[in-house]
């Protein structure tokens, strides 16, 4: 597979490229790591005039060929918590899940709040040479919610967005200045929306939490903060990106803001698309995450918002934790689950259940997130990087968390059976994963 880095064509596959409105059999020509042509079946010559070489053919009959997936939200834990994940193992899990571009969220130890750290993340990603790793940087120094980081310097070093992640900027004045200042660099301010005064529980506050005797977090904790930040985005004209939207109320707020032209984009996770707070029964700590799993009505609102465009992307919130952080009493366990290797299967499952349309689902994994962050990714447009994912839509498989490429195995989907599987991932025209 590695011999054809320079020049090859993938033939026979059903090509789905939502950004270009393509869904049908095509031949995709790759030259020097970029898309060189997307042709009707049979239209491709066997000899490439540009390079003066014979074109190697990869037979992909029965498979789907998609743009490589783009994840706006992955925690790679390096630097600081390398026992949970490293940039290399995270990038390996990414390509195993069909992802070719991932944004490494900045809440590491130390947090990514200066240009040297941004360059460190970038360099580690390049050394791993798997998925493309794009660094996020923090909004405030040390994620403390006080002084702004040097956004210009960080952006020049390669930061694609700014976020204080799970320590949301509590002071509305600081958030306002961050949004205003971010217009200098044209990169989004990315917000984990949680009012800490309303938070503090370990699952959704509702019928299941009162039954289990667990302290709950109401949907209002998210909605109050989203509404504040939408108001500030409107005030400043800056681009706000909302992480992991989880409630119907949040969806309503974003829909309303978008309809009035507020510059906001938003994502939801595969787990909020799939599970509800019922999954917490039995105190499975792999069902503990922030924002928490919500009731069915919220799940349905997320599905609808993904389909109708209120939400722009499916993002994993890949959050590796070691057994010692998870095999604990529920209230003491860490929040979050790994997601890179199950995201596609869960998204496709929503298609199979009739909840999402296939092309929209693919868009949510590819051009949707790429557009949200203005990344050169997520399409098969001629000239774009040859980041490609091949899917066997018929393959039946069972997810075994222990065998995943990630260093951590904290997944509520361990043992789930899926149909449709990533079989090969190309980054820049080179095979970086093969089943």
């Amino acid at each position: 597979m590695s011999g054809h880095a320079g020049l090859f064509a993938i033939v026979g596959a059903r090509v789905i490229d939502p950004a270009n409105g393509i869904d049908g059999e095509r031949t995709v020509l790759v030259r020097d790591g970029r898309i060189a042509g997307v042709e009707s079946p049979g239209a491709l010559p066997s000899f490439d005039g540009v390079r003066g070489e014979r074109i190697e053919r990869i037979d992909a009959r029965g498979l789907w060929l998609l743009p490589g997936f783009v994840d706006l939200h992955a925690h790679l834990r390096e630097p600081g918590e390398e026992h949970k994940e490293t940039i290399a193992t995270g990038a390996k899990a990414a390509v195993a899940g069909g992802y070719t571009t991932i944004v490494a969220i900045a809440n590491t130890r130390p947090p990514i709040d200066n240009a040297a750290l941004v360059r460190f993340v970038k360099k580690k990603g390049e050394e791993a040479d798997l998925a493309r790793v794009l660094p996020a940087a923090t909004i405030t120094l040390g994620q403390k919610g006080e002084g702004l980081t040097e956004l210009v310097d960080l952006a020049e070093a390669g930061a694609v967005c700014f976020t204080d992640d799970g320590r949301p900027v509590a002071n509305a004045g600081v958030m306002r200045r961050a949004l205003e200042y971010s217009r200098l660099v044209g990169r989004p301010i990315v917000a984990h929306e949680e009012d800490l005064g309303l938070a503090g529980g370990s699952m959704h506050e509702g019928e299941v939490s009162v039954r289990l005797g667990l302290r709950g977090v109401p949907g209002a904790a998210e909605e109050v903060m989203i509404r504040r930040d939408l108001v500030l985005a409107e005030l400043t004209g800056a681009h706000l990106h909302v992480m992991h939207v989880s409630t119907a109320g949040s969806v309503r707020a974003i829909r309303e803001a978008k309809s009035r032209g507020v510059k906001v984009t938003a994502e939801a996770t595969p787990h909020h698309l799939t599970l509800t707070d019922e999954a917490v029964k039995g105190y499975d700590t792999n069902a503990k995450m922030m924002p928490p799993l919500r009731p069915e009505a919220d799940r349905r609102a997320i599905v609808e918002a993904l389909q109708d465009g209120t939400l722009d992307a499916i993002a994993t919130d890949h959050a590796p934790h070691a057994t010692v952080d998870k095999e604990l009493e529920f209230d003491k366990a860490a929040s979050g689950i790994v997601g890179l290797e199950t995201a596609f299967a869960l998204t496709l499952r929503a298609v199979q259940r009739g909840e999402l349309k296939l092309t929209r689902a693919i868009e949510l994994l590819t051009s949707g997130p790429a557009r949200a962050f203005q990344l050169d990714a997520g399409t098969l447009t001629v000239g774009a990087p040859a980041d490609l994912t091949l899917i066997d839509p018929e393959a039946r498989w069972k997810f075994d968390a222990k065998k995943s490429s990630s260093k951590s195995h904290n997944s509520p989907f361990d043992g789930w059976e899926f149909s449709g599987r990533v079989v090969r991932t190309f980054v820049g025209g080179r095979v970086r994963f093969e089943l």
Partner: protein
Amino acid sequence: MTALAERHLLGLEGLSREAIEHLLDTALTMREVLRRSVKKVPTLRGKAVVNLFFESSTRTRMSFEVAAKVLSADTYSISQTGSSVTKGETLVDTAKNLDAMHPDVIVIRHASSGAAALVSRHTRAAVVNAGDGQHEHPTQGLLDALTLRERWGALDGKRVTIVGDVLHSRVARSDAFGLTALGARVTFCGPPTLLPPELASLGVTLATSLRRAVEGADAVMMLRVQNERMDGQFLPSSREYSRTFGLGLEQLEWLKPDALILHPGPVNRGVELSPEVADGPRSVILPQVENGVAVRMAVLYLVAAGHAEEHG
């Protein structure tokens, strides 16, 4: 013989009326043993019962110990101080290490909801939940049911009102499951900050007026409100709580003349219950304690019997 569909007793949620009645019937037999001058039967001879108490407790802990000893089990007690927990050992490690010593029953009290379920996944012993966080306290629910059943004959159609910090109360949850399974109608009463509307999904009625909640009740269970809730987070003050939700002689007038007063202990005298009411003729607080031992004997007997069947 086994009364429990599952090997463990983690909660009363989902237990059938038959299973609960059987536990209570067994407890009555056990109480008869407890009242003898020679309080010893060989029922659990050769069985090892570990009491794993991570939270302070007088009544429940002592009660489980007495219960095990009357049944001739060997008992071992571990508390948080003086155990490896203070050295940072996780609950799962503690469970696995105890399991290696072949206990038959592990009784656990822990501050985290779900702790008993977690231990049950890492041991072959039968696990009895002696109170896990704000989740359940099943033996308390059983002893309350036993206390009421013997006063009334049956709980069907009886109205039981539980007053106080029901949000954070494992007793309230176990009572709600246990008493409603036996046919009682349960009302939760407290200030709105401690009474989220979702609690109604447990099959209980919610009320914020003490007077309305206790009028017509056949029994009133007063819960203790922890001091940490009364520092302005959930309640403005202990004083205001007491005058709004406390039960004194004046409020007693609202109750039916034959209504019973229960309390799971320990009582905050003068806060939720005035001393006159706590020690008054309608109070069944001390019979609750005696029944507590009887119920725990029954539970230990039944889970150990189930355990023997499985491993025999």
